[in-house]
Every structure is written in C-alpha cells, then in structure tokens.
C-alpha cells in the first residue's frame, strides 16, 4: 500500500466504523463545549488541561469505541503540534518552576500545553466522528441551526475530496504499473498528472451529481429520523457539561498537590 492509499484509508475508515445508535446532535454540542473549555485554558498552565483528558477517555469508553483507538488515531497530529510549539522553549526562557534542581522555563510549559490541548481537542473531534460520521455531523450542524446550504456544500466538498483521492490512487497505480520502477518524474509530467486528475475527478463528480439528481436530490440532503433528541441526550449533555466545567474551573492539580504534601 502506498502512502496515498494509507492516508485515504485512514480518513475513510474514520467515517466507516461509526455506529448508528447514538447519532444525535448531543455529541456535536458536547464536543463544542469541550473545545471551548480546552482552548480557554491559559497556555502556560498545562496542569489545567491534563484533567480535561477525562472527557475523551471516559466518553470513548462509554461509547464502546475504546480510548486506545481514539488515541492511536490522534497521534498523527503530533508532528504538526510539535512544529507549532517547538519555538516556545527556545524563545521563552523565563523560569517559572523548579523541579528539584531543574529549572523549567515558561517555553516548555507552553510547549507541553500546546501538545496537550491539540491532542485532546483532536481526540474529542475524532470521538465525535467515530460515533457519528461526517455526513451525520453535517446533518446535525443543520439540526442545531447552521444554514443548510452551507452544510450541503461542506458535505459535497467532503465527498469530492474522496473522489479526487480515489482518482489519484488509480492514476498512481496505473503509472507505477508502467513506470518500470522509476521513482522520480519530470516536472512536466506532474503538470499532466494534475491536469488529468482534475479532468477525471470532474467527470466522476458529474457522475455522482447525476446519480444524486436521478434519485430526487434537490440541493439539500434529506435528514433521517434517526437524529433523535431524547432523555438520554439530555442526560449526556447536562452531565458532561457539568463534568467539563468542573474539570475546567477546579484546580485539581493544586488540590491533589496539597493532599500529597499534607
């Protein structure tokens, strides 16, 4: 399998293993609340974020997905986070903490903090996608008030992304099959490759669009009735909002330190 195919499967699989049961806008709402909570913690306080890990860990277990799966899927964002945070320890050398004889500067704190908040936010989003799937998410966004044109647009763009990827994989295979082990291609050939890719994916998108029209599609995707809001949704929303608020505003690090010190 090539890198391209792996990337494709990674994204596609996320969408595929979702279960239909808990499809309800409540997941979307809780995710939004969680993201606000995580991103509002000051950058130089990683100890404030650590506790918020409770949500992805516990919720993914409760949803029957398992935190392990969510975690593994989330680590490929690490390199990106490292790139974003890497300069902090270099430039921000104000010492803020001593661990034994080791002086910790603020740059390191913000670095760790960026890694944590990035990872946790991403995990919450992955959890949402795993439980619902992109298409449902766009539909739910509609349910909770996003303009339907926008959601349908996003959905179709999302679908189009796959169309392009699929065509790219096919073309790459065809090229490799005739390439006799050649690895690098001259620039001019890339131009042709991209031109062809656009043409092919346009043809494919036309096909999909026609097939949608043929089945009565008129611009907005139909919502199934399964996006229900019931008592369980309320319980999920209220209890998680409470837990997240608690984790966000209570200084557990301090409380625990005090307990240990005492």
């Amino acid at each position, binding site marked *: 399998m090539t890198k391209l195919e792996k990337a494709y499967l990674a994204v*596609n699989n996320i*969408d*595929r293993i*979702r279960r*239909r049961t808990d499809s309800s806008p409540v997941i979307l709402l809780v995710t939004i609340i969680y993201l606000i909570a995580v991103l509002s913690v000051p950058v130089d306080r990683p100890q404030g974020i650590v506790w918020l890990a409770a949500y992805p860990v516990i919720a993914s277990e409760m949803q029957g997905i398992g935190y392990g799966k969510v975690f593994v899927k989330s680590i490929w964002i690490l390199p990106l986070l490292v790139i974003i945070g890497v300069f902090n320890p270099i430039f921000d050398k104000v010492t803020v903490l001593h661990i034994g004889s080791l002086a910790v500067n603020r740059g390191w704190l913000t670095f760790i903090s960026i890694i944590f908040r990035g990872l946790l936010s991403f995990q919450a989003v992955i959890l949402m996608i795993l439980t619902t*799937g*992109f*298409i*449902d998410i766009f539909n739910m966004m509609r349910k909770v008030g996003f303009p339907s044109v926008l959601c349908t647009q996003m959905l179709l763009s999302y*679908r189009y992304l796959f169309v392009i990827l*699929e065509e790219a994989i096919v073309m790459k295979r065809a090229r490799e099959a005739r390439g006799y082990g050649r690895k690098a291609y001259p620039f001019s050939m890339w131009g042709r490759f991209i031109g062809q890719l656009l043409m092919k994916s346009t043809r*494919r998108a036309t*096909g*999909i669009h*026609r*097939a*949608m*029209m*043929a*089945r*009565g*599609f*008129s611009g907005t995707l*139909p*919502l*199934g*009735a*399964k996006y229900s809001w019931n008592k369980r949704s309320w319980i999920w929303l209220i209890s998680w909002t409470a837990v997240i608020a608690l984790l966000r505003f209570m200084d557990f690090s301090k409380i625990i330190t005090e307990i240990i010190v005492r």
Partner: protein
Amino acid sequence: MSHHFVKYTNVHYRYEDGTEALKGVDFKVTHGERVALLGLNGSGKSTLLLLTDALLFPSEGEVNVGDVPVTKKTAETIRRSVGFVFQDPDDMLFMPSIYDDVAFGPRNMNLPEQEVERRVNKSLQEVGLKGMEEKSAYQLSGGQRRSAAIACVLSMEPDILLLDEPSANLDARARRSLIELLKGFKHTIILATHDLEMAEELCERTVILSEGVVAFDGNTSQIFSDPEILKNVGLL
C-alpha cells in the same frame, strides 16, 4: 402515469463541446417490455439513458415517458417514475452506510421514515443484501456494489428501469445472479449492454445504436440467427 412506455421521436443530442452523440433516434418501448440497447462504445447508449431520466434534455426532437414529455419542468416527475442504475455503482453509493444509500431516494421523496425503512428493507431483501445495512459500499464486492446500486433505485419504486452496462466488471457468478434478479422484475426495462448473452436471456427485443442512430430494431433472436446484423455495426 398509467402507461409506462417510453417514446423517442427524432432525438438529437449534442454535448457542449460539439460532439453529436445522438443524431435522430426513433423508437418506442411499450409497457412491461424489456429492451436491450446494444452498440459500440461511444454509440450513444448512455446519452440516450440520461435523456430518458431527464438528466439531459434533447437538443432536438422529443422524449416521452408515459404521457409526459421530458423537459426541465417535468424532470422531477420523470425521475420519480424512472429509475436509473448507473454504469459505475460508486457514483450511486456515497453515504456512510448501505442503509443510508438505499434510503437516499425515498428520503428525497419526503416519505415518512417508517415507509423509508420498509422500502429499504424490502429492496435490500430483493437484491440479496439483507444484513449488509451497516456496511459501507467500500466493504462490498463488485457484485454486491452493483446489487446495492440496484436496491438504491428499487427503493424508489419506479415504473421504468434503466440499466447502464450492469454486467460490466462482474465475475461469472455475480453476473449470473444479476441476470436471475432482473428476470424477476416486472418493470419496463431498458438495458444498455455489451453482454450479448445477457441481452438474449433477458430481452426479447433489441435496439442497436450505431453512431447516434438506430441501426437495428427487432427480435433479439434475429441477431443470433443473422450475424450480418452485428457485423455491420462492428459488434462482431
């Protein structure tokens, strides 16, 4: 629409780039008839099917489905009574699960969810995909994907079925079960295909397109008794 016939009168179609795909097609398919549409690649089979489902509109001439002429205005009505199984099932399967794919049409028709469910179950049952509801297209074999695409159309309960090269890319066994499946249908069917045997087995009548015009219209058995017919249009 009590009469499920399709009538082509002097149908021309020119694509935007100037390609003349159809240059005056005339024939009529009557209620309950199964017609095989044969022809080389590029002879205009797909174009004709697209015109029949109001996905394209004739540049000249007329297509009638029942009493309704195919126009932009009638497109919605036409698409309700005509079901189109596209050549590439992947064009038709774009939702996260087979269930949602098959429910796509009925939901667009604004049917109550209960009725949607009934139709999805029935259609999946018919094509032999019961129990595959939660799978994604991507997890199915080529033959199963074709069946799923057919279920997507059946769930809309159309009067007329258009199939564009349904046996393409199927192995012998999948092709066999497809033929058996289609044999059971009561719909008026137009079947574009390269598969002569399939045409022979399913359709009493055959229309051969050649370079955008009808080159033959008659009994399928005639084609097999007179090889000249196929030779003339390059199919043999």
